[in-house]
């Protein structure tokens, strides 16, 4: 890794390699869109997964255990396959396209846009976070909730004052992992061959196709730095071993 830093800084332009990234619009756009994408994925995942996770933990209904078992499926598929599935769903010959043509007369195709990428990432991250939230919700002391209710707290106040604070470490940990995964996801983006170039793709292109090792190294350092910072922040805030559950 030290070598990565050295390569980036030791290139023809020295530390200027880092400057290039900020000045060259293509790199900057890739950086910004990757961070935005990762942040959006993380936020959406946390909201959806928390509601689903707490619901699944609290309610017993027929088919519940099948549903929970199915949540582990997406973990088994690599990014390439996820990208592939998104295309089959929302691509030019995709299922959603077929359906929308039947209904509205126009094919809805979003596999190659931001929406497609988002779908792929969410498909991957939501089940994982649901399982984390469920595990954390199971460990919440039900007496805490009962105590709050006995003191007159409404359901909404119980959620705000007991459940959300109780799930905070799980949120931080799951959120950080989710963000890190989204920052580094390559297979999905590559397969979708989207209009949006995410950072791992840029690095790949610079390194392999253009042999622009200096820029690739600088981009890698920046990508790693941002991700590590997110993990470290979450770890500090949660006070527990976030990385261990990565």
């Amino acid at each position, binding site marked *: 890794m030290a070598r990565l830093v050295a390569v980036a800084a030791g290139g023809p332009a020295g530390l200027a390699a880092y400057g290039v990234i900020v000045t060259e619009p293509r790199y900057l756009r890739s950086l910004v869109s990757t961070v935005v994408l990762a942040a959006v994925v993380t936020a959406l995942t946390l909201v959806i997964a928390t509601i689903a996770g707490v619901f699944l933990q609290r309610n017993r209904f027929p088919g519940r255990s099948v549903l929970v078992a199915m949540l582990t499926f997406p973990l088994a598929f690599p990014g390439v396959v996820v990208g592939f599935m998104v295309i089959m769903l929302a691509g030019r010959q995709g299922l959603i396209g077929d359906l929308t043509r039947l209904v509205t007369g126009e094919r809805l195709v979003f596999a190659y846009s931001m929406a497609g990428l988002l779908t792929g990432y969410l498909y991957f991250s939501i089940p994982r976070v649901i399982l984390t939230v469920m595990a954390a919700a199971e460990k919440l002391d039900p007496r805490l909730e009962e*105590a*709050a209710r006995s*003191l*007159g707290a409404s359901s909404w106040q119980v959620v705000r004052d007991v459940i959300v604070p109780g799930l905070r470490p799980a949120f931080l940990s799951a959120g950080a992992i989710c963000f890190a995964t989204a920052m580094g996801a390559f297979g999905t983006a590559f397969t979708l061959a989207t209009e949006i170039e995410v950072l791992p793709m840029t690095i790949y292109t610079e390194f392999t196709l253009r042999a622009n090792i200096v820029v690739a190294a600088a981009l890698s350092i920046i990508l790693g730095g941002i991700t590590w910072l997110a993990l470290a922040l979450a770890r500090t805030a949660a006070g527990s071993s976030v990385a261990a559950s990565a």
Partner: protein
Amino acid sequence: MSVAIKLVSCAKTFADGTRAVGPLDLEIPPGETIVFLGPSGCGKTTTLRLIAGLESPNPGGRVLFDEADVTEISIERRNVGMVFQSYALFPNMTVGGNVEYGLRVRKLPAAARAARVEEMLGMMKIGELRHRRVDQLSGGQKQRVALARALAPQPRVLLLDEPLTALDAKLRDALRVEIDALLRRLRMTAVYVTHDQAEAMALGDRIVVMSQGQVAQVGRPRDIYFAPQSRFVAEFVGTMNRLHGVVRNGHLEVMGGRVPWRGRGGGEVEVLFRPERAAIVEAGAGQVKGRVATSFFLGDRTRLLVEGVSSGTLVVETTDRRDWEPGQDVHLVIDPDALLTLDR
């Protein structure tokens, strides 16, 4: 402020079909401290939760507070104070924040809240802990905070679910004394659940002994102790000795001798008596003779386990300061009036 509580044919069957509480009827007059006592799984906690509103009774069962039916009213609007074995303090709030919580959700003005928190912390002698995080407290301090929090919104009834079980012996005794003083001073209706008979006897105005979802006996501590209505109650509350023998010629003849018999019936019987109703006497003066199996020096007393009087071992206590050796002979006089014949 304190209410009478009435349970009318309250039963509770859980979703998995187990009947936790058989239909039971109970009246708790205002200001009384009632203790539900029983082994784990006897339904005492479920009954407490029915009163709290954390469980609903099966159809037909009713819970009344001062003649008002509260069966359909959820716990948030029943105005009850709860104290749990696990303390259940909010870990994301300070001690002061915990005590204030019930006032905050009721949207009391800040000044009134601060005054009441102050009063509660003072009452529980934990004023100096106000700004502490709850994970920095000892078990005893946590339970004081839990009491202060439960009492702050001036509940109509205080419900305590094994509040002292998690504490060690010395602390348990000290806090038991304080809770007793608190309940007497506040004259608040209180329902206390425990599996510890000493705690139940020390705290309860009345005790409800429960077994397998049913009430085994209700009464004042001394009624329960001196006049148990069943073998279960007799053996669960305090220590009981068993004598197995044959009634013949006005005496109960046992392995180690004979005791005058004032009861009815005859033939083979098994009777019960409390350790303190047997006295150790000089050789010759005793009705029955046994052998010391073990002796335990307890400080103010010595407890002897005596073999050879009946088929099992008898427990006898003495306050003399003699040293007892295993194998030594021991002569006993048992008060004939203390012999209990209980069939169930």
